[in-house]
């Protein structure tokens, strides 16, 4: 749980650039190096670099207008970058676009389809575009759209439309899929269903690049996350490590059964700080903090009561790194 004070903007003059390399031993599915895109005087994407390994779910997280979508549109070849290089499974999205279109699936933000076509008709059309398409019954089943096959697009709910849009990104059996804001506009249940679906698709060996401004989604799904703000990558790591470095770790708050010497805890490797809040004690640290604190107190004959553990999350990391509060409800529009 994020504590209240951590949600307040915490401005730091120099945000540390953390970068975890892509898991070793796997071929890169996406290589983006020094990508730059300028619209007039606005630098939408500024020196963005990241690598996604095959089989990863990679998140691109940032507030609206951070340049996420522009970066992705450059990566898939919809826009020409002003500088930088992009390789998708070793291919150039412009020079090798015919091959790229065969093996890279794309779901664009707010995609709409003709109102008076049926689900099955749309899928049949897109299916015919690909050399080695997915089995349609299978895909409809996985996406929970089997019962909607004969329904007009306009009669679908927001969640069903979104799932159809994901289905179109996957109908060509891509080896790499870009999904832009795939759960925006979905209710919580539909969102969780979609997350499960993405995990199942990854289990089939598809590399997934997920653009989102929804924290929980990135935390739940992504192996690694790039935090983007003002067109720059401000951090790139696993969600857990980003969260851990946001506040130097976790916080334990408890009510001691009696007085004790602070040095009892400050001497522990896991503890970085100790504060008193009335009768309560707040200890900040890392690792197995709770165990270490309780064992040390126990050895001194003190019992900790009313114990509460707070660990920081991706949202805290975001606030710390960008000085901004990401709109958590953005996805509920």
């Amino acid at each position: 749980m994020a504590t209240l004070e951590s949600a307040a903007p915490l401005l730091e003059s120099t945000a540390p650039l953390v970068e975890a390399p892509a898991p070793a031993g796997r071929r890169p599915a996406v290589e983006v190096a020094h990508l730059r895109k300028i619209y007039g005087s606005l630098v939408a994407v500024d020196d963005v670099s990241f690598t996604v390994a095959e089989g990863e779910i990679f998140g691109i997280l940032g507030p609206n207008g951070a340049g996420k979508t522009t970066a992705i549109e450059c990566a898939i070849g919809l826009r020409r970058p002003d500088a930088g290089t992009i390789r998708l499974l070793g291919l150039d999205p412009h020079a090798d676009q015919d091959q790229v279109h065969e093996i890279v699936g794309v779901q664009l933000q707010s995609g709409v389809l003709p109102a008076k076509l049926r689900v099955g008709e749309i899928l049949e059309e897109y299916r015919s575009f690909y050399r080695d398409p997915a089995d349609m019954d299978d895909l409809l089943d996985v996406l929970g759209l089997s019962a909607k096959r004969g329904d007009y697009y306009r009669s679908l709910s927001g969640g069903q439309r979104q799932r159809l849009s994901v289905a179109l990104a996957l109908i060509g059996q891509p080896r790499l899929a870009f999904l832009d804001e795939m759960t925006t506009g979905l209710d919580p249940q539909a969102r969780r269903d979609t997350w499960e679906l993405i995990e199942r698709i990854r289990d089939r060996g598809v590399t997934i690049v997920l653009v989102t401004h929804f924290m929980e989604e990135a935390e739940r799904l992504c192996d690694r996350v790039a935090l983007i703000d003002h067109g720059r990558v401000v951090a790139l790591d696993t969600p857990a490590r980003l969260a851990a470095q946001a506040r130097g770790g976790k916080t334990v708050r408890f009510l001691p059964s009696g007085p004790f010497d602070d040095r009892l805890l400050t001497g522990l490797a896991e503890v970085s700080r100790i504060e008193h809040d009335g009768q309560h004690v707040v200890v900040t640290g890392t690792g197995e903090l709770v165990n270490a604190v309780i064992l040390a107190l126990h050895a001194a004959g003190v019992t900790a009561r009313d114990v509460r553990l707070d660990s920081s999350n991706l949202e805290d990391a975001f606030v710390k790194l960008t000085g901004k509060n990401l709109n958590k409800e953005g996805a509920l529009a």
Partner: protein
Amino acid sequence: MSSLSLSLSRARPRPRTARAAAFGQVVLNEARLVRRQPVNMIGSIGLPVVLIVIFGELPSFHQSLPGYGGLILFDAYVPIIMVLGLTMLTLLGLPGPLVSYRELGILRRLSTTPVPPSWLLAAQVVVQLCIALTGLAIVNITSVVAFGAPVPKSVGGLALSCLLAIGGLFALGLLIAALAPTASSVNAIGRLALIPLMFFAGLWLPRALMPAVLQDISNYTPLGAAVQAIQDSVQTGFPPAAPLLVLAGYTLVFAFLARRFFRWE
């Protein structure tokens, strides 16, 4: 087996039959959409048929115009009504879907697949062409069979005139699709263009009754030239070169401009 050989196998050009089948699927869905939203078919086939029947039933339309070589008013109106249906189709029916596809991001969506978005445009042209030919045939045959209009003197001339009229008007439709920012503005532009175009086609005053100045202007408008070429094919024989060249010229100019200004997103 390896992913390298997989990407190599995918690098081979697709067989032509598979590409043709994919284009067939695009055409099929466009045809379904037109059938399910028949507004434009009503304008381009239904309305001309209704007009032909009404004019055909009016006794006053079967009198010959004094001083015009025995031309009967109804016969003067047949090419005008043929051209009216074609114009309704190309000003509204053709650009409407294309602009809304651009507006909805469907053209953009398609450009991330192995199929280029131009296929959707081509599929629309195919479907609308079928409607155009059907409409022209129904109006012409009805006028001859039910209301005694003359059998065309030059069927080849009529076919060529119709094809050139379709060419010029379709290119105009694509130009509107290129320039109209939204689907609703297609309607505004189409309705605005319809009135002067149809005036010079003779909808309110058949060309034979126009003063010389208006007739001269009419000769150089797309619909005026189309009516002239069709009427000559029916009444006298293979049409003179002038209206055919005017239509061919409009086709080239509009097509060039449409290509120049068309945006895919």
